[in-house]
């Protein structure tokens, strides 16, 4: 019964507007499930029924597929949306071996998810490291990938920010200032502090406290040991082999890169666009995750790109 009906001595009610204990979603998946490869299970979700399928790829396992939460409800109104938690993150397994986290493994998981969901072809969207396996998919499985969008791609086609090349990841350091926190020994001892620092650098835009808080929470869903394994695997990706991979990409490519990206320089996004004959859109003032911080802008760009696929002569 409506508590504000007349008859109460005072028409008084309390409405809770505080944060819910558990985050609710604007839209829930229409289908979800697991696929298993070599004993490692990853968790996928499907939203909507439109055409084509937009496949939101996992990124570095420091966060899981909820980082797409501002894309899913919008894109699912226009397309079918597929996403999954990359191995090491979310509801996916966390194998201990470094070899389990190479870009080839993520690409193979992505194909397995396409198969399990009866998805013949999709437009893939990859964030940061997601560009590594996204590019691999586009190069090696051209019949499954209609187009690719890469956001803040972390690709070895241009040098990193100089401040990120100073400190060793493996050695014990005598400082933990700034990027010296990107160090396996620091992670083991001060994992949450690392996450806070790292996501503080991801979101260089003002008023990002909510986004940072979300990401730190997702980062805490795995252990520093797992994150170390993923980092070691990613560092195996070399320039020459990746340049060769890019050459094999034939589908349309859209690269979105913030010019204030403090994780990966704009030059990496520009180089990827060039190497794949794609289009580069520079997002002025944006950091490494414009899709989380400026979702409307990014969603419109993704939608426009996906719809341009349909207009292409086949």
């Amino acid at each position, binding site marked *: 019964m409506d508590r*504000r009906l*007349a008859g109460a001595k005072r028409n*008084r009610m*309390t*409405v809770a*507007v505080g944060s819910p204990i558990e985050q609710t979603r604007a839209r829930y998946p229409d289908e979800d499930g697991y696929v298993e490869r070599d004993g490692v299970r990853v968790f996928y979700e499907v939203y909507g029924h439109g055409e084509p399928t937009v496949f939101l790829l996992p990124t570095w396992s420091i966060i899981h597929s909820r980082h797409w939460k501002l894309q899913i409800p919008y894109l699912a109104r226009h397309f079918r949306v597929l996403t999954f938690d990359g191995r090491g993150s979310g509801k996916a397994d966390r194998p201990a071996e470094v070899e389990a986290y190479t870009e080839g493994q993520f690409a193979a998981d992505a194909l397995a998810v396409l198969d399990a969901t009866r998805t013949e072809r999709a437009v893939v969207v990859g964030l940061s490291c997601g560009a590594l396996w996204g590019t691999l998919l586009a190069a090696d499985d051209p019949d499954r990938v209609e187009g690719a969008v890469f956001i803040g791609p972390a690709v070895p086609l241009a040098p990193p920010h100089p401040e990120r090349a100073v400190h060793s990841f493996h050695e014990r350091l005598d400082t933990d200032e700034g990027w010296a926190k990107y160090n396996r020994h620091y992670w083991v001892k001060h994992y949450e502090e690392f996450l806070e620092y790292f996501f503080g650098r991801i979101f260089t835009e003002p*008023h990002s406290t909510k986004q940072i*808080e979300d990401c730190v929470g997702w980062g805490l869903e795995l252990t520093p040991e797992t994150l170390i394994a993923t980092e070691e695997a990613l560092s195996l990706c070399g320039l020459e082999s990746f340049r060769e991979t890019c050459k094999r990409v034939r589908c349309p490519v859209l690269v979105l890169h913030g010019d204030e990206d403090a994780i990966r320089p704009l030059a990496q996004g*520009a180089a990827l666009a060039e190497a794949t004959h794609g289009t580069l*859109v520079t997002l002025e003032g944006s950091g490494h995750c414009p899709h989380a911080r400026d979702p409307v802008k990014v969603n419109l760009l993704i939608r426009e790109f996906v719809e341009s696929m349909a207009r292409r002569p086949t």
Partner: protein
Amino acid sequence: MSVVVQTPREQTRARYPDDQGYVERDGVRVYYEVYGSGEPTVFLLPTWSIMHSRHWKMQIPYLARHARVLTFDGRGNGKSDRPEEVAAYAEEEHAADSLAVMDATGTDRAVIVSLSLGAQRALLLAAEHPERFARAVFICPSVSLGRPLPERVQYPFEDVHDADEGWAKYNRHYWLRDYRGFLEFFFSRMFTEQHSTKQIEDCIGWGLDTNPETLVATRLAITMGEEETRALCSRVCCPLLVIQGTADAITGESRGIALAEETGEELVLLEGSGHAPHVRDPSRSIFSSETSSRPRSRRGGHEAGRGASGRSSSAPRSGSGTRSGTLASPASSVSSIPTSRSTGWRSIP
């Protein structure tokens, strides 16, 4: 090919006014805006002149899709004049400006919505011009009822204090010395909710649109005491809705609760909200205001013996006497916050 998507450097608006202009009284001009053309007119009153009408920016575009929206910059900020005399900022002057804006825009009758100090001019308007106000919504009203926050009563505004920590910053000398420092403190207390950096930044910017001298004058003009407030409450005959945040760190929740008690009118407590829920939780606050179309209920029993002048309702009766709107949140619960009546405190935002 390369495209640059630019972020605008200046705040744009979701909706721009359909009509705007100035009204002048005794040489003081205030700037008003009109949005939409629906019925009824929702009149978003100015609050304390530490801010101007842009603080309603989350309400205007939404409400203007359903109603005609009228707002103006209170004297002392925004595009309105900044007279120097304290007397120019009396509540009666703000109320008279409000009527002048209604006249200038051909608005016979309106629903008034006020924030904080705006409650005082809203009470004046509703009590003295019942034919022009169909309903009144009070968001975190700053009225001299209930109890002040204890931390706010230790530092008299005009004295010189040794410290300038916390609420000691609410002080004329501090304002003149470090105006921005005061604004930063004040608005950090206004938004007690997490993730409010944008709202705080906006408000500081609006505070900087006026100056400490003007703000001192507006502060010294606040004189409405408890007795006058009670007298006005007894004369208001349109239905009221009080929306109050339970984590309000500017006036405390006590003021809003006391206003609802005093008038026997409806109270919605927003759990966890600070002093500006319409800015920080705009969807919820709009929802509340929207559902307030009910007839005036009876007075609270404890006031039955007080003067009853002006109580005959001239407000239109809508519905059957029960609430038609709902706040159908499963989380809703009737609060049982005890109220107590204290005396002699003047509410200062």
